[in-house]
């Protein structure tokens, strides 16, 4: 009979209590895992999202973050040309974001429009059909939600209307375009009705003429390692622009989410405390119930260390089983919570709050195992210090 077998049998002896304790530990472990995933997952997911198409640097109007305001850059074609001449840069392209309308029958639906340079774009992935070519002024790319709204597919014609603003009495600009492809816009929130055309067409729809403006410039550096250095150089080269590397953007993002992280740390700590209390309480009750048995073991020559070890093994078994169930429960809960949180408007659908990573699982498991095992120390000490003679006397009466 191994110590482990003895411990397992001891736990099975109090089946209901053990099941309830394991359930409690599993819930605490799930919460701990979710909080560990949350605390590090948001920024990792954000960084992955920014690097989805491999563009490490963003240039925006001074004082703004990418797509944070409606501010635009002017003279973008010359900036793009200068960037593309840089030998450290693999590709560079401009993106204009604007709102416009799509005509369906007699009514108009509001859409989000992207003006892109297809030869250097970092904001979409083609799912069906084909991509635009740089000089395709008659083509358009639709997101799946827009395809549904307009009832259009690849090869169909759609009519887009821009500058329809009764407040400024601006004249409407209209274009009839052929759907080249259905795409997934990387930074869209769930259900966002987005369309894309080549940059001059979208500039015309936004302002009435190709005014050489864009919301942001994307830069892909040939070597990831030199991206921060290139960003620093571009900052000096283009002083009237904001230049962000992915590291810069993640840092801004972290600052904005600092309270979120603190909350996750607090909840993770609370779940650990609950786990420790659960295990300590259960084992203390068990030890007190078995004092007679423990005193007998000590009387027949079983060492204090053996008695302590048995109690600690029971604590560890409870923790291991609870943690294993907790990981499954935590992953399921994270997926469910993620689906709720990422459905909030304004959040990219590809963004994830809970990122399951091997290191997260390992961290949660190790922290839980260590604390769970330590939680058995007090009851183990109680068991080892049980007075043999007094306990046997009280057992006999």
């Amino acid at each position: 009979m191994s110590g482990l077998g003895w411990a397992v049998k001891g736990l099975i002896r109090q089946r209901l209590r053990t099941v309830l304790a394991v359930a409690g530990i599993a819930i605490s472990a799930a919460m701990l895992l979710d909080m560990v995933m949350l605390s590090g997952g948001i920024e990792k997911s954000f960084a992955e999202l920014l690097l989805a198409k491999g563009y490490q640097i963003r240039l925006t109007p001074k004082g703004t973050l990418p797509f944070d305001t409606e501010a635009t850059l002017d003279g973008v074609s010359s900036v793009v040309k200068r960037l593309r001449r840089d030998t450290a840069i693999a590709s560079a392209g401009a993106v204009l974001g604007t709102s416009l309308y799509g005509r369906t029958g007699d009514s108009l639906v509001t859409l989000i429009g992207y003006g892109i340079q297809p030869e250097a774009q970092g904001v979409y992935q083609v799912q069906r059909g084909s991509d635009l070519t740089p000089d395709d002024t008659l083509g358009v790319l639709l997101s799946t939600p827009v395809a549904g709204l307009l009832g259009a597919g690849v090869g169909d014609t759609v009519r887009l209307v821009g500058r329809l603003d009764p407040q400024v009495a601006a004249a409407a600009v209209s274009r009839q375009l052929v759907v080249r492809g259905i795409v997934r816009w990387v930074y869209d929130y769930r259900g966002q009705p987005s369309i894309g055309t080549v940059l001059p067409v979208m500039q015309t729809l936004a302002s009435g003429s190709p005014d050489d403006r864009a919301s942001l410039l994307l830069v892909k550096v040939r070597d990831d390692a030199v991206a921060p250095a290139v960003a620093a150089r571009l900052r000096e080269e283009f002083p009237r622009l904001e230049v962000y590397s992915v590291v810069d953007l993640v840092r801004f993002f972290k600052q904005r989410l600092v309270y979120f992280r603190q909350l996750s740390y607090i909840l993770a700590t609370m779940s650990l405390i609950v786990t420790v209390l659960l295990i300590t309480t259960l084992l203390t009750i068990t030890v007190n119930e078995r004092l007679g048995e423990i005193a007998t073991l000590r009387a027949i020559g079983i060492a204090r260390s053996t008695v302590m070890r048995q109690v600690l093994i029971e604590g560890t078994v409870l923790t291991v089983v609870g943690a294993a169930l907790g990981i499954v429960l935590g992953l399921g809960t994270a997926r469910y919570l993620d689906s709720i949180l990422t459905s909030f408007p304004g959040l990219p659908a590809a963004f994830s709050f809970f990122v399951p990573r091997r290191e997260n699982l390992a961290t949660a498991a190790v922290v839980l195992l260590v604390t769970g095992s330590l939680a058995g120390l007090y009851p183990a000490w109680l068991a080892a210090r049980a007075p043999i003679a007094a306990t046997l006397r009280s057992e006999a009466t």
Partner: protein
Amino acid sequence: MQGAAVHALRGVSLEVGSGEYVAIAGPSGSGKSTLLQLIGGIDVPTAGEVEILGTRLDSLSDRELTRLRLTRLGFVFQRFHLLPVLTARENVELPMAEAGVPARERRVRALELLAYVGLEDRAGHRATQLSGGEMQRVAIARALANRPVLLLADEPTGELDAATGAEILSLFRRLNHDGTTLVVITHDEQLASEAGRVIHMLDGRIQDGGESPETAAPLPRRPAVPL
């Protein structure tokens, strides 16, 4: 508030020779269980000394005392105190495992001991599946596991009916006959009368029987298992 000190034993002097079968009898509260616990090194006297095989127990550390109880003494309790989650064989193996006996060797010996106490067919049963008499016989087998020089039993028939108690008495007779030194605490006169020497206690003092016999016990016959 501080209570007055209670002396469970006063002026007790007792010597038990190898191979003896000693019964300590007396009413409840006479100090016989305390005496047994002192002999067994699970309680410490406020004055006086206990010596087993030439070793004074007060000279031993807690670890050494625990080791002595494991390897030189055997205990049988009124309430058996088997581990309910373990089988009869596993209960008997427990002290051997603690003493570091290899798994195969302790398994063989556990089965031999269970056969000796007449429970070879109950080796795989958990303690909770055994009757009172069977549990006590498993407890005796457990007490014999590490070949103790002295077997201490505290009211071993206290929880048993008369017939089952008689079986335990018979087993003790056989154990003593096979060479085991026995000290048995009882208030059962029949059990006491089975012993080679009966010590009567009252109010923490030995009334009679405390003197060591002048003649040594007869040499034991070859036991059924190497006790």
